[in-house]
């Protein structure tokens, strides 16, 4: 499967709490996993999963691994969208190498 690496910067407010959502597009489905600021892992369909508080997140990062497999007969494209507190942070799109192929998106988000 193809590995796609990305890096993102995100500004945090020390007084706020932050939540992560991962969405897959192009009618495809996938699973994601990351370790939050407290050191706990979360794996599966991530919707508003707590990352931590802004004060603890500043200067640190989270690494999100996502696997999306092509099951859509109409297209070989996959896409992934990262949202923090329901605000879209980034979207990436990639085509699988062949029918029913898989993409492993590995994205590091640095909090400043």
């Amino acid at each position, binding site marked *: 499967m*193809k590995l796609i690496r990305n890096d993102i910067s995100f500004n945090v407010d020390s007084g706020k709490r932050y939540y992560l959502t991962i969405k897959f597009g192009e*009618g495809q489905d996938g699973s*994601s996993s990351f370790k939050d600021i407290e050191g706990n892992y*979360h794996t599966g369909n991530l919707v508003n999963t707590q990352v931590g508080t802004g004060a603890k997140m500043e200067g640190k990062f989270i690494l999100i691994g996502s696997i999306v497999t*092509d099951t859509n007969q*109409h297209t070989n494209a996959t896409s992934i969208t990262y949202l923090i507190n329901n605000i879209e942070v980034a979207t990436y799109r990639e085509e699988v190498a062949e029918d029913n192929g898989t993409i492993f998106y590995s994205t590091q988000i640095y909090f400043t």
Partner: protein
Amino acid sequence: MRKTSFFVTILFLFCTALVQSQKIDLTELKAPSSPAFTILGIQPAEIARPTSYEAFQASLFENLSNTEGFSIPQNVALEFTPFWLAAHPKLSFEDLINSKNIASNVLQNSSVSIATIDINSELDSIVNGTRMGIGYRTFLFKGSPSKENRSKLMTAVSELKKTQRSILGAYQPLFQVLAENPSINDADELKEKFNAELELFFDTQDLSTEVEEMARKIYTEEVLPSLFEEVYLIQAPNTFAAEVFKNLSKILSDKTVGIEQKLKEKAAKVEALIVEQETNYKGFYLEFSSAMALDFQESKFNNSYIHKWGVWLTPSYRTKSDQFEFLGVVRYLENRIVATNSETQNIDAGAKIAFQTGRFSLSGEAIFRFQNVTSSTSSAFETTNSEENIEDLKAVLTLEYKLTDTLLLTYTFGQNFDQNTEINGNVVSTIGLNYDLGGKKIIKDFALN
């Protein structure tokens, strides 16, 4: 020779399709039915059954009534779905498989068809030229998926997700350690950290035993053996972790690894069930179609006019048992006949019953036509306009046989409309071959990051 070459063509296509044939499903392929063909008047079955709209679908016809005997089919129609040519980052998997509102149905199922034929009708004054049909169709309503199929689909999705999560379990803790320790320079220390992170991965969340066992198996049997290959030879400082990362990425991308094959098989099963769901909806469907035929005299672009245009609705109902399907059609057509300087306005209303069992399908349809003909004849002294109302009937039987999952053989026999400008006489006797060229593009593999 022509008869021989026709059967050689059928045999060749059959053998080619047989190489990749899978489980047979008669509802996957229907008789060719693109609006562009229908407007050109060379469609043997006027009423089309709903299809799943592949990216491209080529249809071939041969008319046995041709007095010259058998020949290589010349009428080809192409149909494609523009929706899937664009990116859809907000379209989720659930949106794709669940029943949609009318707007979503219309957008996702819109297809455009194009077909061409040579003009050779004696009823048209054009000596030579090309006629192009351009058609559009979509679903307004698409029925409901069968409960049995939906249950199988959800089970297959669940199995696919278990495998995806197992892979995350085997790789994500390792990527995490490498990201947290970019300067680490000792293989034993790194292995200890990997093992500890793996335990943390399973201890801090509630994953099923099956997922955990699969993840540990992948880590032990597929990742660990190759993880430190060639890394001991690295001498440059602060490159050890980066080289291990490269190895990890290489292992992840290795197509010979068993887990890659497992993912592909499970994904293929999910895709097949989605396709089956789309072609096996039960209950009520409503399809909208429109098309126009453009005549190019002497095949020149600047010498063209609209010969015919029309819009039609096709309601249908499919029973739960899949054996019976009932269809109807309501259509409005306008036709310009150059030879007689006349125009026709047609209102068609018809019904079709289809029965299928195994590889065979048998259907019968009847269409009543209420036609208004206005014509104008001119002499040296005056121009005479006349108007006539005509009632007409088309009735055909169609037999379909699925040779393979990509090859459908059809034969249609019956009576065409008496008033038609496309063929001589009103006997319909057509053999057709539907060969599915649809499917996704194959993109060449490329190297690691």
